[in-house]
């Protein structure tokens, strides 16, 4: 069951995406209806909506407010969330 399924008044979760992930999802922000849930829940939703991005997503981390978070971390609509794929700077 998706966290959004039992939301009577679903808010929106906005996730910033970059680089190859932005190409795969067709934009620099993913917007999904969201009431509550964890990073793991958000991963599942993103993979379902953007199957082409699933493989890269599995190798990516999540960050909230410029802090890396694990899959158990709760996410709230309004959080500053980002997906961080493997890096290639320098």
């Amino acid at each position, binding site marked *: 069951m998706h966290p959004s399924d039992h939301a009577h008044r679903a808010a929106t979760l906005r996730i910033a995406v970059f680089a190859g992930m932005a190409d795969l999802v067709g934009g620099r922000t993913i917007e999904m209806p969201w009431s509550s849930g964890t990073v793991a829940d958000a991963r599942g939703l993103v993979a379902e909506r953007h199957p082409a991005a699933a493989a890269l997503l599995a190798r990516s981390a999540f960050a909230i407010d*410029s802090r890396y978070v694990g899959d158990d971390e709760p996410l709230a609509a309004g959080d500053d969330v980002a997906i*961080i794929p*493997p890096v*290639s700077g320098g």
Partner: protein
Amino acid sequence: MSSTGSPGTHEALGHAACRREPIDTAAVLRAVGHVAAGGNVLFVGTARGTTDGVATSLLEYDAHEPLALATLDDLRRDAIARFDLVACAVVHRLGIVPPGEACVAVATSAPHRAAAFAAAEWLMAAIKRDVPIWKAEERPDGRRAWLHPESAPRPGGRP
């Protein structure tokens, strides 16, 4: 190279930045100059015209800017502490970078040269491993490919 600050302010000497304009590499080197430092190293990574024999018309860099800047500054301070540096500065370019221009510049200074060299090498490896910045290479045919190396670990191992 000019003298700046006093010996007690070592930890703060230098800076971390991301820039969408060409990097003034001489300014990055000047930022670590200090009379207590005898060894000064500047590393400049530039966009090559070819990679593995394939022509590259330009590079593009994308970033999670707040996290990239915070990580660059953390690594800069780590380098100062680990290698007992006098100062350390790092600037990363973002956006389109034509061949020959600087993508990244790292400067270190220390009383003697061994620490300045070791710190600059360590910092470049750490930047490539830990900072949420991504590079795309555009070929002359217009194809642009973002690099997310298969060999790289999932980011965040170093929060």
